[in-house]
């Protein structure tokens, strides 16, 4: 059976032929063909039943809802807290801070490849852009807009800590900001790489994990965190945690987040605040039609 015949057969079995076409094909079928078609349809339906044998676990759904609530809470609370004037000041500060980190002492390094090889202690020290302790490293992480907390328990600087922070650097990898933190783990070098969860850098990390070049990898906040080193304490990846937004001072109840009435959050001046832009990757298939918002099948454009 050639491909065109095969496609027509499946259109017939799927009930997608017009009544006239279906009747024509039906008349032309021998009894043996009819029997074979029936068994093929039975096989496909059995495969479909097996593929559909999965229900959404409660945990998965709660995570989806919680993630959405966190996003809305972040936009609503922060915007309500800041107000537009403070937001403008913060934006200026963020630009200056980012410029101070990434353009000092040299311009952001554009790298074609994301080097994920193991280094020596000596090399790690020379690669760092900032070497003056935890606050500077935290500033590098913050400037790259990763919503993670570096060492929230301040364990790195404790006397019994097995690792010392040597420095940090930020790189521009194909338009994505990547942060590296360098450690001395009881004399052995280790490196922690933070990359955006979605993008080319994350893909490179995924490849390195599959190839066994990375010791561990974890998704935290909006970052993918990977650790490189021949002897890395398992606790190293735990020194990074999701950050939390500042608690409001207006006596808002703990627990569920309430969005002000109406569909959008507003700031103190009553101006609508847009939720943070979700990257619009909804049109990854080719032949995007920017025309009408609905189509013949009644599906709205996304």
């Amino acid at each position: 059976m050639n491909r065109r015949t095969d496609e027509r057969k499946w259109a017939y079995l799927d009930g997608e032929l017009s009544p006239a076409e279906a009747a024509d094909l039906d008349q032309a079928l021998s009894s043996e063909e009819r029997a074979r078609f029936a068994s093929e349809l039975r096989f496909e339906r059995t495969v479909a039943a097996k593929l559909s044998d999965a229900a959404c676990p409660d945990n998965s759904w709660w995570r989806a809802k919680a993630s959405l609530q966190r996003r809305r809470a972040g936009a609503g609370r922060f915007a309500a807290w800041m107000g537009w004037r403070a937001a403008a000041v913060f934006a200026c500060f963020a630009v200056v801070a980012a410029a101070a980190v990434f353009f000092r002492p040299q311009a952001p390094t554009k790298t074609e490849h994301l080097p994920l090889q193991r280094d020596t202690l000596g090399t790690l020290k020379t690669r760092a852009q900032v070497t003056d302790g935890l606050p500077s490293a935290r500033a590098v992480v913050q400037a790259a807009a990763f919503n993670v907390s570096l060492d929230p328990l301040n364990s790195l600087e404790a006397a019994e800590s097995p690792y010392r922070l040597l420095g940090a650097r930020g790189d521009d990898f194909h338009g994505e900001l990547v942060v590296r933190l360098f450690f001395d783990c009881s004399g052995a070098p280790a490196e922690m790489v933070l990359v955006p969860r979605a993008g080319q850098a994350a893909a490179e990390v995924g490849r390195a994990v599959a190839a066994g070049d990375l010791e561990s990898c974890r998704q935290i906040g909006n970052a993918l965190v990977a650790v490189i080193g021949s002897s890395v304490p398992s606790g190293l990846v735990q020194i990074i945690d999701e950050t939390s937004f500042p608690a409001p001072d207006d006596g808002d109840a703990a627990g569920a987040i309430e969005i002000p009435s109406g569909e959008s959050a507003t700031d103190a001046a009553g101006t609508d605040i847009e939720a943070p832009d979700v990257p619009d990757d909804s049109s990854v298939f080719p032949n995007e039609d920017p025309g009408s918002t609905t189509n013949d099948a009644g599906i709205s454009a996304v």
Partner: protein
Amino acid sequence: MDDFLENVEKYRDQLYRFALRNVWDSSFVDDVLASAVASAYENRHKFAPGTNFRAWLFKILINKCFVANRETMRVPFPLDQAPEDRLVDENAPGYRDMLEDPEEFLNQCGDEVYRAFRRISLVQRTCILLKDVEGFSYKEIAEMLEIPMATVMTHLARGRAHLRKELFEYARQRGIVRSGAAAVPRLEVIASRKAKEAG
């Protein structure tokens, strides 16, 4: 937000299983689902009331799955480039065994069904899931994927053929079906031979 989530929750099982069967790395399924729900919420103003909400949700989910699969940089086994002669010969020994009792056959294949399904190309998986599992029409699938209907038909036919090829080869290697005339015959043939010899 509660109303919106309530409407989306009606489809949570369908959305979850689609992501589960479509995404290469199953550890991403929860993230893909959460991302799709968030994106649907953020873009809810773009949905035209009275149109197909379920198809609109699936369109968002399809794109999230596509991004997730692209990120894991999995290169699908190039079955979709398979020439005609690599597809199952319907006259091959054992092929009819496969079709005779599909439930028993697939039970014996076990989890290989899911593994084989993941080995066919992303767009073929998507089309099969949308048609066979979720019951969308060819036209709806074409609109969601923004491809011609004829292309949907091609992906469905090829995807189904490639999946059978994978399962058939697996079954032959494991002895679930006959692998050829010289191979060990099926039990009922042995029984009937013994009956002839005895009687």
